[in-house]
């Protein structure tokens, strides 16, 4: 329980006081900040709505003529709300935050890269290295390589979409599971880590491709 500084009302931790509407916000996790249940599946429309709704009610403009303490509280609550919204909006960062919230580290016991993915990473990186060399030479070869890398990029984006679908399924399993400790939970943690890692490797590779193709265009 926490106590509202403005009206003294005791209540469960939440972003703003249930009685007088003063901003609170201390000690909240990001789900609680948005008044959402601790579930991984989040309806994006509801998230938007809640964010804007709460944002209006704790907006610093509303407290401009109030005490310093309330003005401060409003600023802090707004910052927390924004962080909660940004983190939970994107399923990948939501999943990463979930791990953190449950005391897990993504990299723990999770260093091996699936063989087919690793092979793809090295192949594409070779292509990028070739492209860097070819760019300084005559046009035809660079053109061909650029096309090949561009195709890879499309493929990688498709793989990320696949990864995102796996993520959604994993979220649903978590929500159905109810959070009890045990083998089922450990398996969900590992599965979540693997999907998030796969997406991380794919994103890094796409970032490198983007860089190379953009600089190739500029050259």
């Amino acid at each position, binding site marked *: 329980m926490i106590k509202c500084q403005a009206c003294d009302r005791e209540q469960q931790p939440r972003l703003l006081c249930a009685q007088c509407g003063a901003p609170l916000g201390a000690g909240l996790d990001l789900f609680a900040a948005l008044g959402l249940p601790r579930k991984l599946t989040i309806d994006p429309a509801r998230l938007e709505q809640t964010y804007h709704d709460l944002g209006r009610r704790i907006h610093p403009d509303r407290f401009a003529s109030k005490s310093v303490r309330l003005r401060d509280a409003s600023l802090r609550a707004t910052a927390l709300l924004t962080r909660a919204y940004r983190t939970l909006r994107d399923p990948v960062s939501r999943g990463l935050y979930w791990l953190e919230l449950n005391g897990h580290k993504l990299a723990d016991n999770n260093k*091996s890269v699936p063989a087919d993915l690793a092979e793809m990473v090295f192949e594409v990186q070779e292509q990028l290295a070739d492209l860097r060399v070819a760019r300084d030479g005559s046009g035809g070869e660079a053109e061909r390589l650029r096309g090949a890398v561009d195709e890879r990029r499309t493929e990688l984006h498709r793989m990320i979409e696949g990864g995102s679908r796996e993520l959604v399924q994993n979220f649903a399993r978590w929500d159905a599971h109810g959070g009890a400790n045990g083998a089922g939970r450990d398996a969900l943690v590992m599965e979540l880590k693997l999907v998030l*890692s796969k997406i*991380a490797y794919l994103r890094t590779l796409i970032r490198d491709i983007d860089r190379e193709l953009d600089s190739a265009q500029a050259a």
Partner: protein
Amino acid sequence: MAYSEKVIEHYTNPRNVGSFAKGEDNVGTGVVGAPECGDVMKLQLKINPENGVIEDAKFKTFGCGSAIASSSYVTELVKGKHIEEAMTIKNTVIVKELNLPPVKIHCSVLAEDAIKAAITDWKSHQTPASAQEPRKAQES
């Protein structure tokens, strides 16, 4: 981010970049990744099956400069070492040598893990009688 001189040195002039030819004997390959940043590293060790000594090393790492420098450095570090000794190499040695800042420590962990993965891979290809315990074999 300001890189240390040694990182820049390894980065601009990396040692032992490349791969051993496919199917070459006595090569152990370790592929590891850092899921926090999505970087992937490959380290290959050529190990003498008679005495378990690492004779040559090659690496392929892309992206992060600290990971490239870390892997370049460990290829030099492990050469001439017995595999059991190489297994004990800690990332802190790399951090110290390259002067890595805290946010780049995971890059050195990647290199440490790559050594272990490569040796484990090599061992899995050996027959127990040959190189797994070379010292004992010599004694008997």
